């Protein structure tokens, strides 16, 4: 009988992953953004390229599986951008579930942080698993700036988004195109209203700013709310099986709404 119990225990240890607390910070993977950006640097970049923008993946694992399969079947896309709310409850296990699926993508992927990703110890997990919340990288002559814009999560204390970071990154004279990637858009109620116009003016300060890309609203929207020639693209949640495909050709771009 003792052996039966021991056997059950051994099976359980073997079968279950040890979790000390749901809010623990023990991601299975680290520095995913940096690793993927390194992969992008090795790409031979042509004048024309396409990338995919996908929205809130939070707790939509089945749809994400389908998304991964779908994107793996595409041939004319170079990378995937995720604009936050990767997870729903900010839990370690959720982050691992999402990463496990994203790592099945053949293409490199880069993710920003969403408001749900900051719940409990989510911010610590994101920082470990993906890296800094504010970052930038080049793909050819195009610059991509990722930012944490979830002001509401810090009680609108002025620290998010980090406009100093944005100002230094956007004062770029080399990039032919600048794309911004963040979860909450400046027109959202979750964005610090005191910083909204500053954000808009910073984007306007560089004439090569093309698109400000967002999620959060779970609805596909392509707007030009500030009538300044800068598109504000919102992509729907993974549940809606929706994504946007952005194709860049020189200094021009096209945005397509897709479903899978």
């Amino acid at each position, binding site marked *: 009988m003792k052996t039966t119990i021991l056997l059950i225990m051994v099976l*359980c*240890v073997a079968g279950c992953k040890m979790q000390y607390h749901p809010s623990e*910070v023990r991601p299975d993977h680290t520095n995913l953004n940096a690793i993927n950006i390194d992969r992008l640097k090795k790409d031979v970049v042509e004048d024309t390229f396409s990338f995919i923008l996908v929205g809130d993946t939070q707790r939509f694992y089945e749809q994400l599986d389908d998304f991964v399969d779908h994107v793996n079947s595409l041939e004319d896309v170079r990378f995937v951008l995720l604009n936050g709310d990767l997870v729903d409850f900010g*839990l370690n296990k959720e982050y691992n579930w999402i990463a496990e699926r994203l790592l099945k993508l053949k293409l490199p992927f880069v993710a920003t942080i969403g408001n749900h990703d900051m719940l409990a110890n989510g911010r610590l997990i994101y920082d470990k698993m993906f890296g800094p919340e504010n970052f930038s990288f080049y793909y050819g002559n195009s610059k991509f700036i990722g930012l944490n814009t979830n002001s509401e999560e810090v*009680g609108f204390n002025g620290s998010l988004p980090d406009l100093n970071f944005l100002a230094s990154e956007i004062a770029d004279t080399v990039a032919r195109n600048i794309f911004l990637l963040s979860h909450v858009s400046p027109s959202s109620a979750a964005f610090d209203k005191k910083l909204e116009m500053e954000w808009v003016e910073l984007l306007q300060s560089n004439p090569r700013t093309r698109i400000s890309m967002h999620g959060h609203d779970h609805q596909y929207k392509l707007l030009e709310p500030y009538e300044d020639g800068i598109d504000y693209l919102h992509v729907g949640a993974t549940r809606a099986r929706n994504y946007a495909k952005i194709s860049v050709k020189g200094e021009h771009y096209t945005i397509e709404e897709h479903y899978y």
Partner: protein
Amino acid sequence: MKWHCLLLIGFQCLGGFLFAQFNKGSSLLPHHAQVQYAGNIGFVSAGIGYATKNEKLQADLYYGYLPKRIGGTTIHSITGKFTASLIDRNYRKADISFLNLGFLVNYAFGDQYFLFSPDNYPYNYYRFPTAAFVGLVVGGSYKKGPYNFYYEVVAADRDMISFANNPSSIKFTEIWSFGAGVKMKLRKNKGKQRVLIGNNIPPASGSPEEIAAYSCNW
């Protein structure tokens, strides 16, 4: 300490009190003390608990600790756990329970967690608490003498929701996490001796018939 925590402790005391009443007046002193490894409530957890007379129902209170070196961040939490032994057998003076079923409520301390969406939200934006979770507990135990060795697997409410929404993507085994511990009995849990009234006093000595006759009076 927040009132929620006091509530949980109160809940636990109530459990102990009810068990005590059930056991006809035994004291509120804990019936056992225990330590546990893992099981979703900390790296190591320790606490006290109560049991019914037949020890089939147990209510335990734990303080759980997860050090930063192991958990990436330090987590202090308290847990109330209620389990029932559903299938058990006595075997060579040991009591083996093949199926313990129950639930636990865990509350983590820290400003990064909340029970209700923080004040900076105009409404209850997040309809779940990040400070607390309910876990389903399934396990078994081996009791011998004052010791009760137990193991269990725990599934947290949120992981169950994730599984329920994505049964073809998330494996059922992925939502369970293992824990094991030992409880040590602190006192006998037999309840207060019945007060014998009037003439119904057992004979100090007597013939076997007399003793048998007295026993029948019960």
